[in-house]
């Protein structure tokens, strides 16, 4: 039905809010990144000075390197674990729904809660290391969270724990959508279960891999809460991510232009893979 006045009128507040508070704000932040804003927004245009300063900052390169380490491991491990759990659960196990609930419940928790729980679990003074010592394994050592070279891996552990159940659920839905005929044919030919997975099922899960990748990658770039709760960026700045950098420079160090520039780069990083993904998804919908 062609829209009359009323539907358009009722749709317009949402349109306005999205246009202003998303796209308008993105434009405004981009604009700020080309000014000399410090504590308050300024309108003095200074070209790409903030980007030059940003790219020269050690804190930024540490944040970007940390993000690279974190994102690669987080995406890789969460996908592998998610797929592995999905395949295990797919073997017609008893208590399937209980197991799925157990693997998925961390998704319902706030990253602040997850961070708090893992913060003390990984703390050598009270957590795992101490438990192992008390159990008699005196030489067990696990001090990553206090070690500036290793602390970022603690962020990976907690983030994987939180999200791999979700990846499992995605893969499980994918596994159950795989065409059964090919599988039966392969089985008649005497293929083993692992061969069937490797050669027939997993190659058909391409779409799930892509979706999982896009979701995990954009989660990695946005990650903020978990780092704050788990390590607060420390020890030192060893677990800073671009999100932490942005917050610090904008709201604590009064370098708003640099903070704005960093958030523009975060947006670009996400846009690089989200926009192609969205376009292909929308094309799929259009062409059935």
């Amino acid at each position, binding site marked *: *039905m*062609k*829209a009359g006045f009323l*539907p358009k009128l*009722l*749709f317009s507040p949402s349109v306005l809010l*999205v*246009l202003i*508070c*998303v796209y*308008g*704000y*993105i434009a405004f*932040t981009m604009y700020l990144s080309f000014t000399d804003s410090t504590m308050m927004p300024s309108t003095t245009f200074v070209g790409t000075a903030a980007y030059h300063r940003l790219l020269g900052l050690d804190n930024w390169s540490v944040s970007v390197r940390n993000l690279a380490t974190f994102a690669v491991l987080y995406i890789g491990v969460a996908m592998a674990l998610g797929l592995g759990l999905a395949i*295990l*659960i*797919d073997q*017609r196990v008893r208590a399937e*729904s209980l197991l799925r609930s157990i*693997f*998925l419940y961390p*998704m*319902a928790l706030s*990253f*602040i809660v*997850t961070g*708090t*729980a893992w913060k*003390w*679990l990984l703390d050598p003074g009270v957590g795992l290391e101490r*438990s192992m010592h*008390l*159990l008699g394994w005196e030489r067990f050592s696990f001090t990553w969270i206090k070690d500036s070279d290793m602390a970022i891996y603690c962020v990976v552990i907690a983030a994987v724990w939180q999200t791999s*159940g979700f990846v499992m*659920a*995605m893969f499980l*839905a994918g*596994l159950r959508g795989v065409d*059964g005929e090919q*599988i*039966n044919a392969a089985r008649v030919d005497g293929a*083993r*279960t692992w061969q069937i997975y490797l050669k027939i099922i997993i190659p058909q899960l391409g779409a799930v891999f892509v979706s*999982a990748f896009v*979701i995990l990658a954009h989660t990695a*770039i946005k990650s*903020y*809460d978990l780092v*704050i*709760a788990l390590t*607060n960026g420390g020890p030192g700045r060893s677990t800073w991510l671009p999100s932490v950098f942005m*917050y610090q420079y904008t*709201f604590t160090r009064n370098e*708003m232009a640099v903070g704005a520039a960093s*958030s523009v780069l*975060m*947006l670009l990083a*996400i846009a690089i893979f989200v926009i192609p993904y*969205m376009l292909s998804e*929308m094309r799929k919908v259009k062409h059935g």
Partner: protein
Amino acid sequence: MADVHPPIALPVKGVDAGAAHVSLGRAALYAALAVAAIVFLLPVYVMVVNSLKPLDEIRNGNLMSLPHDWTIAPWLSAWSTAQIGVQPTGLRPFFINSFLIVVPAVAISTLVGALNGYILTQFKFRGSTVMFAAMLLTVFIPFQIVLIPMAKTLGLLGIAGTIKGLIFVNVVYGIGFTTLFFRNYYAAFPAELVRSARMDGAKFFGVLGRILLPNSTPIIVVTVIWQFTNIWNDFLFGASFSDFSSYPITVALNNLVNSSTGVKEYNVHFAGAFIAALPTLVVYLVSGKYFVRGLMAGSVKG
């Protein structure tokens, strides 16, 4: 959680394998799943067990062991007397704040999503596809990019540092999701029902109120759960736009755990973390099926 898909027919007992071989494989399968389940449950076990211990027992004992002297004192302390920032308020006022933020924000964003989904699927007008795509993209943006102008806007509107401000922010950035959910649901809604209602003279709100909404229970539940979980768990907006009187629970918990000076009261931290987790955990346990559906709908866009 109920199954949505039937399992693929993978024979459990291979024809070519002996029974002993098969049961060994099954044993390994269950062992692997059991280990994974223990790892997944461990942090919550540690949280609960240690929230019921006196502090001495944590410092001198094992984080994995059950309490020797059971106590609910850490819970009482986390709830009503623990130091948040400089005030000994406990988490209670912030727990209430979170509800004051979440309930209106979820209600408004869900209603707006239903309305948008209805308009986008039942009416044709120029630019509707582009607008939907524009709304969809908001789901992915890193919110860091809007923090500075939003802080300014909240100041101009006079709602900086207030519950109202946080409701506003969470509604604005929730519309993308809620519109997506309802739009996809209504796109698959039987067109004859809508058409015959119109023939009977139903107007704009008649179709929405008498035909669509009464048949929308599943998607309303999915949307409400999704929004509730997201907004309850929000930290970035809370940390950026609230002050002491309007902290949501996540910000207060982080304050409790990370800015405490002196003795670290692990047991109180664990109790506090559990209190902050409780509402979303309860929602998950009661309606896990819908929670998963929301995750899936949120993950397969378009």
